[in-house]
């Protein structure tokens, strides 16, 4: 169920909030649009003068204050915050607080255009493809894409200076260290790979260990540096595959 009121007074807004939101704050989302002022004290101190904004109080207690432009909220309180509502001198006041770290945000409304409350259900999780792990998985399932005869033996191998994305052996049983980047390979990725290779060599200069940097795109400057260090590279295709299975509802079966 969704409820709303338009262009209302502070006291009516408070009554509305008490009826539709406050009794079950953890189950309803509250939306307020109006002219407000925001005072924040916590890790820093901020003050935002009067202006028309959108305030969203989510079902987990998070509070977001959006100005009419820009993507990011101008003020916010994290998940687990608690908001109290009151009316003083005909102004609607929201006090949102969070204990760890201690943060307080006070929002004062002098005009209210809209108040809405609704119970929202959303169990879906965002699936993102094209992350570093996707590239890593791709290589694990198809090591031939890097080199014929390559065998991957370990994923996320811990060494002195960090964690190797992929470790394996080539067709001549020479150890191979593979560092994976999800988009552009950088100079620091080369340094990282060099350190991992040295870790595997255990500082024995004569030891033979190969290092391969894998990324969808490797700039010439990075290639040159890799050459200087006797390291290799391989440009790998990044495949974006999102699972396309989906959840059906019981409603779809009621008609059978």
């Amino acid at each position: 169920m969704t409820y709303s009121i338009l262009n209302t007074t502070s006291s009516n807004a408070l009554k509305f909030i008490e009826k539709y939101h406050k009794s079950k704050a953890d189950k309803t989302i509250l939306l307020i649009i109006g002219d407000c002022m925001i005072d924040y004290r916590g890790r820093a101190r901020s003050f935002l003068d009067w202006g028309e904004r959108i305030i969203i109080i989510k079902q987990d207690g998070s509070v977001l204050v959006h100005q009419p432009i820009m993507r990011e909220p101008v003020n916010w309180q994290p998940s687990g915050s608690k908001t109290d509502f009151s009316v003083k001198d005909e102004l609607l006041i929201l006090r949102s607080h969070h204990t760890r770290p201690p943060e307080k945000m006070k929002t004062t409304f002098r005009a209210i255009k809209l108040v809405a409350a609704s119970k929202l259900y959303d169990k879906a999780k965002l699936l993102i493809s094209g992350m570093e792990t996707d590239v890593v998985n791709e290589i694990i399932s198809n090591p031939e894409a890097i080199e014929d005869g390559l065998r991957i033996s370990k994923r996320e191998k811990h060494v002195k200076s960090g964690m190797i994305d992929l470790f394996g052996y080539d067709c001549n049983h020479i150890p191979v260290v593979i560092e994976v980047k999800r988009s552009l390979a950088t100079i620091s990725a080369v340094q990282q790979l060099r350190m991992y290779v040295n870790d595997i060599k255990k500082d024995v200069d004569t030891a033979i260990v190969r290092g391969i940097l894998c990324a969808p795109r490797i700039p010439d400057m990075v290639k040159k540096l890799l050459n200087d260090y006797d390291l290799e590279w391989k440009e790998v295709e990044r495949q974006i595959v999102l699972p396309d299975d989906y959840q059906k509802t019981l409603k779809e079966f009621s008609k059978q």
Partner: protein
Amino acid sequence: MFNAKVKSEVLKGIIDVTSPLVNEVKLNITPKGISLRAVDPAHVAMVDLEVNSKAFEEFNATEMELGIDMDKLGSIMRLSSSGDMITLDYDEESNRLIVKIGNLIRKMGLIDTAGMPDPKMPNLNLPGKVILKASELNQGVRASEAVSDHLALTVDKNNFELFAEGDTDTVNLKLPKDLLVELNTSSKCKSLFSIDYFSNMIKPVRGDDPITIMIGNDNPIKVEFDIAEKKGHVTYLLAPRIESE
């Protein structure tokens, strides 16, 4: 009119089967016992529960409906320990349910049942039927939780099989006919389900107690078991996930 005396475990059992799916339910009360049917907000799963009045130590009721906030009742029941006797009494005047745990009296406000739906159990063609020990199924589901968010269940003439596949790992549980209490199917059936929902449905069944599963092809699954010392019965329905390749 409704007043009853019930063991803490029985009431907790009813909450355990209902609360993972729905927060608010309409409890139908008759002189013969209580029942409820509810669909989760996403319309993916349904719970149908019947508890005979014999599951209660005392039970006096006329036909009526109670709108109950399951989370609230759950938190009240956490005040009791197993073996406690709980007294339930409906106070018509204040529209509250009075819950007595020993000397503690907790009056719980009820929800208006007017807007609550009466979901219908869909007619389904589910040719596969398996009865197995809860512990076997639980082990497979627990293993699957670690690798994926959905699992495939398959029934054919000789086996019941559970399979889950993640990015790199897989889980497979294959139970041949002789390890099952019952296996009956006219054809091979396979459907995919969300582990989140499915694990909530089998969690309330303990140890070697039997669970009945009815399954079709890309069709909802029916999960049934007894509660309240076999004086109550639960039927769950869960819509499948569909692989579109």
